[in-house]
């Protein structure tokens, strides 16, 4: 077998983050090799290692059967590896031609040689049957065309291996077809393509080989024709699907949070969400499904008062909270688990005792009459959270950054639940953490729900969403398009509503 890339036992760890462990993957020359996995499964880390952006802690990489050790993207490019990032790196006020040659020559005062380059680039374009007007300004191009510019840019630098990071995430369906046609052309011209995605349908359409990653490990590499979508999904999510035990309790009738046709737009007039209404009842988990960027994040942030709303009303326990500050809302019984624990929920260079106070600085439990912090109570509470939520840490004095991602998340969930809220907003509560932590968090959420908590759950993990929720509402383009009971809905159905294919 003729290999383009061969990695042997690559491992990489960051403090608090599970990245790659013993990843061995063989990528055949002139093939399209897809790497699939959920957010946080370790795909991006692997790509960063292959593109020289970060060094593995251990393991070996062979490129075209030569042992390689890359410490910068420049070295990767020299070895023939190029990458097209999800967010394009183009200067919009330059032409396509100028963008492609940007950074090729060292800065000097000699003539740019645009004509010479134009000819060379046109040769590359005809070799690989890629078409674009080199004299257009990048800002006038469609998203698909911009992506093509990135591909040409990389090929022009001599790339024989092309890494595409979630290339279809930004494209409309017609553009996806165009991209796939181009990729197949490239493959015919002996370019190797590594295609990172979590959209299984697309992967099955385009890839020759498929490698599945989960929790930092490479689960398996399979040939496209030997695998079904269900099998892929199982490999991706693992056998840890939540199996909802029959509920012993019932959803109560009183509304904890009642949202009445709220609308929010950005300063430039772009709508974040329009006319959104829903409510969550006592002892109920309401799931929110939606592809990222369809307004659901902004909606939950408006509930805690971080996102402004232009119109509509939010009632919490029967009281209008439109004019309350974030702090007042948190103190009145709304808890929030934000989607990014390291950025939004914790202070990484502070210890756990300090981290347990965050969001509750002003309640009597932690604030004395002299406006000082009651450290003793904070220590007691952090010990409480550590033991109830099985947080693995030497003591309460340990810095948050020293914990693994799963332990950080358990601590955050514990902090929010132990505050005895009447509403919990949980945004991606188990993203990128180990299975043990995940099942503990699921169990705790269920228990709290049974004890009367109203939970608003946002998750990109559809199995999690269906498994945990009592009802699910679907967001599409800033509006709620569908409400479903979780008893009779499949991930496929949900996916249909989320992408607007089903109505």
């Amino acid at each position, binding site marked *: 077998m003729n290999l383009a890339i061969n990695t042997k036992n690559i491992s990489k760890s960051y403090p608090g983050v599970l990245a790659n462990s013993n990843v061995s993957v063989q990528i055949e020359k002139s093939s399209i090799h897809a790497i699939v996995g959920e957010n946080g499964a370790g795909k991006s880390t692997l790509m960063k290692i292959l593109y020289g952006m970060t060094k593995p802690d251990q393991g070996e990489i062979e490129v075209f059967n030569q042992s390689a050790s890359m410490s910068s993207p420049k070295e990767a490019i020299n070895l023939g590896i190029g990458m097209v990032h999800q967010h394009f790196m183009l200067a919009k006020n330059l032409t396509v031609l100028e963008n492609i040659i940007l950074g090729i020559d060292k800065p000097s005062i000699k003539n740019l040689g645009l004509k010479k380059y134009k000819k060379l680039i046109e040769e590359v374009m005809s070799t690989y049957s890629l078409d674009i007007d080199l004299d257009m300004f990048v800002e006038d191009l469609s998203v698909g065309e911009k992506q093509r510019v990135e591909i040409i840019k990389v090929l022009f630098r001599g790339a024989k291996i092309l890494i595409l990071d979630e290339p279809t995430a930004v494209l409309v369906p017609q553009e996806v077809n165009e991209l796939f046609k181009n990729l197949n052309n490239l493959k015919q011209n002996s370019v190797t393509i590594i295609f990172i995605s979590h959209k299984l349908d697309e992967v099955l359409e385009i890839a020759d080989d498929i490698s599945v990653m989960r929790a930092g490990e490479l689960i398996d590499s399979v040939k496209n024709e030997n695998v079904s979508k269900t099998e892929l999904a199982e490999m991706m999510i693992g056998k840890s699907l939540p199996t909802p035990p029959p509920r012993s309790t019932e959803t109560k009738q009183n509304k904890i949070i009642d949202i009445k046709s709220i609308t929010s737009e950005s300063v430039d007039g772009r709508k974040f969400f329009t006319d959104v209404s829903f409510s969550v009842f006592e002892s109920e988990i309401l799931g929110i499904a939606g592809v990222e960027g369809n307004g659901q994040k902004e909606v939950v942030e408006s509930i805690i008062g971080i996102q402004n709303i232009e119109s509509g009303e939010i009632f919490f326990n029967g009281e209008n909270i439109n004019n309350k500050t974030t702090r007042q809302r948190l103190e009145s019984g709304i808890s929030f688990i934000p989607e990014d624990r390291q950025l939004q929920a914790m*202070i990484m260079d502070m210890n756990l005792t300090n981290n347990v106070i965050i969001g509750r600085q002003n309640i009597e439990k932690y604030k004395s009459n002299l406006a000082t912090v009651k450290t003793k109570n904070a220590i007691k509470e952090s010990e409480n959270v550590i033991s109830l939520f099985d947080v693995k840490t*030497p003591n309460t004095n340990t810095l948050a950054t020293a914990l693994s991602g799963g332990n950080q998340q358990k601590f955050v969930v514990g902090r929010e639940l132990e505050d005895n809220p009447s509403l919990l907003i949980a945004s991606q509560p188990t993203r990128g953490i180990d299975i043990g932590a995940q099942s503990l968090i699921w169990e705790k959420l269920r228990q709290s729900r049974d004890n009367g908590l109203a939970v608003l759950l946002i998750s990109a993990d559809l199995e999690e969403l269906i498994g945990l929720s009592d009802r699910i509402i679907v967001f599409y383009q800033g509006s709620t398009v569908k409400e479903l009971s979780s008893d009779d809905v499949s991930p496929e159905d949900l996916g249909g509503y989320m992408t607007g294919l089903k109505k």
Partner: protein
Amino acid sequence: MKFSLRIASFSAPIIALAISFGLSSLILLFIGKDPIETFQIMFEYGIKGKSIVSIINRSIPLYISAIAVAVGFKMGLFNIGVEGQYLVGSIVAAFVGSQFTIITPLHILFIILIAVACSAMWAAIAGYLKVKKGIHEVISTIMLNYIGTGLISYSLTNVFDEKGSEYELPRTPELPETGQMPALNNLFRLEDLQDLHGFLFVAIIVGIFYYWLVWKTTLGFDLRITGSNPVAAKFSGINPNKLIVVAMVTSGGFAGLVGLGPLLGYFHRFTIDFPTGLGFAGIAVALLGRNHPFGMGVGALLFAFLERSSQILDLNDVPKEIERMLQAFILLIVVVFYEVIRRFIVKQQVKDASKKVET
């Protein structure tokens, strides 16, 4: 934190000092001076009784200035404007204080309050501009420094120039005796030496107050979490705009005290010789002392010691600039080693935490 880690965090400034003296020695060797002899002369001069009083007097405003800067640093605000803030506060306090006479403690307290209020208001302008107009505090405080010094020069020559008096000097009227802070010499039985400024006590109280404010109160907690992670701070319900103004005003309030040691203890009026540059020196001391009240105290004493002891160098034919270089070396190197030590501590903690997971 474990004891060994505590020791590790103390090692950074000591390593930095050693390396800085080494580098300065090389430079001295290069220009043909004996480094050992030079440092010996400096040291001997620096520990004379007269020098020690002068060092303490110098370190008082340096220390308070460092605290003013550190309040901002703690929440990630760069108040470069301590310079302008303390000068504006000092001149107003000097003038108002000279206009009346009441009993000494009240008079001094009144002058202190005026200075604090004026400096705090001057700093509040930068806070307001940041919150309402999005102007970065570094830009606005630098500009306010220029405006402040400009206003001071103007008013010294045009408003406060003792019209009608014999000299018409650009200075504010002298503080009446009730507005002058007595020296501490009698208290410590220091005879035959120059005055030890009574403001030393205020500096010590300020240090304790700063520690209490930043490490013990909930306001300090909010400042610190905003400084480490503004996003998480916002999600925890902190109103960043309000906190920015509070922090700027607090920082400016501390700045108001910077000029009062010299004003109440020695100058007794605002003149064109009034010490400047203390606000900028405070930034260096805050960096050196890592915003910690004890560390900044040591830093202020160290810088004051270096400044004082270098005065003997000219007499021995060694360029005095070596002391400036030494200060700069210390600062640069200490910043590097603080980061090295910080990473070491984090690594140690990660190790401990992962051990815990395995068991």
